[in-house]
């Protein structure tokens, strides 16, 4: 079972609309209401080691509603958060801070079936980013110190 991202002709979803997403093999599927906040980019070493490069994430105001979760696997990446991925195809899906609301997880932007019409609203942990790449947008750049982390 394959789910191709952004099927030709599919209208980009807008904030407030229900979006669907999942991994490459289909063993994790979810849906939720797209937040208007946009995409946050994380440059921390943990994200970049796990995901090969910076992680692009967004939020669902409804939280994440899982419609299929037999592939969902969690790994505790720190004292304060877990990361969810598909244990069958390896797709990186969720970041779940401890104490966040039930299923109020950050979601991989790439996991959505259709790319939303949205923009980057912030970059975080930019002090951990190597200098070999840069983004063109002008969203705020926040350091570890700014984040109080």
């Amino acid at each position, binding site marked *: 079972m394959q789910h191709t991202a952004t099927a030709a002709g599919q209208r980009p979803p807008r904030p407030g609309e229900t979006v669907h997403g999942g991994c490459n*093999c289909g063993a994790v599927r979810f849906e939720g209401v797209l937040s208007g906040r946009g995409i946050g980019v994380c440059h921390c070493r943990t994200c970049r080691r796990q995901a090969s*490069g910076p992680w692009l994430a967004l939020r669902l105001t409804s939280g994440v509603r899982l419609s299929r979760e037999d592939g969902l696997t969690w790994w505790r990446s720190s004292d304060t958060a877990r990361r969810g991925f598909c244990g*069958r195809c390896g*797709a990186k899906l969720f970041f779940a801070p401890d104490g966040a609301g039930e299923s109020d997880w950050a979601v991989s*932007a790439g996991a959505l079936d259709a790319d939303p019409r949205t923009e980057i609203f912030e970059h975080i942990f930019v002090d951990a980013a190597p200098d070999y790449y840069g*983004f063109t947008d002008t969203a705020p750049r926040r350091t570890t110190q700014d984040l109080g982390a």
Partner: protein
Amino acid sequence: MTMAATTTGGCLCGGVRYRLATAPTSFGACHCGMCRRFTGGVEFGIQVPPDGITWEAEDSLRTYGSSAWAERGFCCTCGSNPFWRLTAAGPMQGLMSLAAGTLDSLEGLTFDVEVYIDHKPAAYAFAGERKRMTEADVMAMVGAAGR
């Protein structure tokens, strides 16, 4: 000034560790939908030939056949995405795009190519000038190598 990149790397939990025969000097980004689902962001990869890598730990390494001609390697414990690898028969079989972020040090790497640029969502873009290839450009290159 170019500092040599390291030849060692691995996943977050250490279940997958490797050593490269040669220190990499550059990496590329892939914007295709499958890479973006796999990594959650953009795939940053280093080209490694089949005999260019030695696995020093691989207990938690699993592969997923993501198409008829390629597979993707991941750590089943921590969800890191170490590689995409060409499985189709031909002169390029076994060629790997190794996840740049898994290297223990990224000093000295240059960002020299973006592929599947026509699949990139409008929401983000990388600054700077470099070679940018569409899906058709990539297919033409792979086809040319296969003849």
